[in-house]
């Protein structure tokens, strides 16, 4: 935690990952910066989800996964014995492909994290609720029906609720795995704007199938191919003038 104030949030060094005998990530080296949106793109099965799930060790829920290498999170290797997954995951929020609110009220959804982690003070909870929903640009739409079931919300609102839920435990980083692929274009646009506005407070890593989306919202883009990190750099450069032929081919849709 020594270099907490540093710009680098994640420093991934020589990360390899196997599912059983199949290697899904090969010697990944990447640095993820504070207050930046890092897009992760690549063809299906290239390891995008695997990579992002490794960052908060959600990957451990899959049996037979083995890793080597280091993922330094604020200077501490997340694979260290001293690092507890529960703690890591409160620091590193995650938003999934399909909006996955709990079938509870909006209120309960947002406060799930704080509650399971022992926040009991009513007023504090109320504050968390409000700030989280406001940060997720959802407050105005739901403030009059906080106790309605979350499934009454539209897909886009649900996804923003999931973001609010992740924000409620005040993470440093938010990981998103194709957060808009189940949404219509309008809801997608809203989420993209939200991501843009969140980056002043959080580091965001987002997996996306849509290069257009990566282009629109990210500062940095990482291109994965068959488990390798082929190119990583400023999004404008990756999209207008990638250095690697494979990136170029993928970007221009001439892949495969």
């Amino acid at each position, binding site marked *: 935690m020594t270099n907490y104030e540093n710009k680098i949030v994640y420093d991934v060094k020589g990360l390899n990952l196997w599912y059983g005998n199949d290697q899904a990530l090969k010697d990944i080296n990447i640095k993820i910066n504070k207050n930046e949106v890092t897009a992760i793109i690549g063809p299906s099965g290239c390891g995008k989800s695997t990579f992002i799930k490794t960052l908060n060790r959600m990957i451990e829920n899959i049996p037979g996964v083995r890793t080597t290498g280091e993922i330094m999170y604020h200077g501490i290797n997340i694979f260290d014995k001293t690092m507890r997954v529960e703690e890591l995951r409160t620091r590193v929020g995650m938003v999934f492909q399909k909006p996955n609110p709990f079938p509870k009220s909006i209120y309960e959804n947002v406060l799930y994290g704080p509650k399971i982690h022992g926040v009991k003070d009513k007023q504090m909870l109320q504050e*968390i609720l409000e700030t989280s929903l406001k940060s997720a640009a959802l407050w105005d739409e739901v403030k009059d029906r906080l106790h309605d079931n979350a499934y009454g919300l539209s897909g886009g609102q649900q996804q923003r609720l999931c973001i609010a839920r992740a924000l409620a435990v005040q993470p440093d980083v938010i990981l998103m795995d194709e957060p808009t692929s189940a949404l219509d274009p309008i809801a997608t646009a809203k989420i993209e704007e939200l991501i843009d506005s969140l980056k002043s407070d959080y580091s965001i890593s987002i997996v996306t199938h849509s290069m257009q989306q990566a282009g629109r919202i990210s500062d940095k883009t990482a291109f994965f191919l068959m488990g390798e990190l082929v190119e990583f750099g400023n999004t404008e450069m990756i999209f207008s003038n990638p250095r690697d032929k494979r990136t170029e081919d993928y970007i221009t849709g001439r892949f495969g």
Partner: protein
Amino acid sequence: MENKIDVRNQIRNNIGKRKNNVDKIMPRFFLIMASVSVITTIGIVVTLITDAYHFFKEVSIFDFFSTKLSPLSANPSFGILPLINGTILSSLIAMLVAIPIGLTSAMYLSEFSSKRTRNFIKPILEVLAGIPTIVYGFFAYSFVTPLLMKLIPSLEAKNVLSPGIVMGIMIIPMVASLSEDAMKSVPNALREGAYGLGSTKLEVTTKVVLPAAISGIMASFVLAISRAIGETMIVAIASGSSKNFTFDITHSMQTMTGYIVEFTSGDAGSGTTGYYSLYAVGLLLFIFTFIMNIIAQYISKKFREEY
């Protein structure tokens, strides 16, 4: 931002302090609970085998699989074939009733009926499925048999036909419901695909939905057979206890389950060969249904089509 740091720290402190004892205890508790079912099976097998062992000490397998069954006569004989015969015949009749009606009902409900009709009929089927077998037994004995006797004068008051039919009726909801579930779980996309090619409803049903749901349907048949084999009260009440080896379904016959009930509620004092024969038959019945179940599982696995 003040508050932000506050929450952050509070949450992180709380995590740091927490011990995960409950998380360690719960799985063990659940494992112990889960093992009860295994113990039950072991209990069944041990119960059946130990007493069946006594039986087979007295009676050779050869005699066991013979047609003469007179367990209590002065010269008892324990040929089980009449029971197997009764079981198979009654199950066969049940299947002849249940499969065509059940399957066509399933096809109707899943593919042909309007949503309203379906919502009306499906619960009724569920009610039908939930009626205790003793009620069916009563029904078979007090209504179906007399009715059938009008149609078939040679029918005996206790016979296999009537309980077979009623068992079939009892199983219809099971076949219909399981088959309907299997057919309903065929994705609508497949139907749309077939309709989109100009198919009629019947073609969609028989050429696309049925083949796609065949594993579920077959499994429902096998489970239905298994249910018919294990069914007790209907046959106990309506098929009598004649131990003759005959294929005449207008006659009274005894099934394996009927035999067990007769003996436990009858002469099942412990110790005699007759008493042990009960367990031998029980064991056989257990094996029968076990095999059926294995078959059902095999079918569902083997024919499972992924969509």
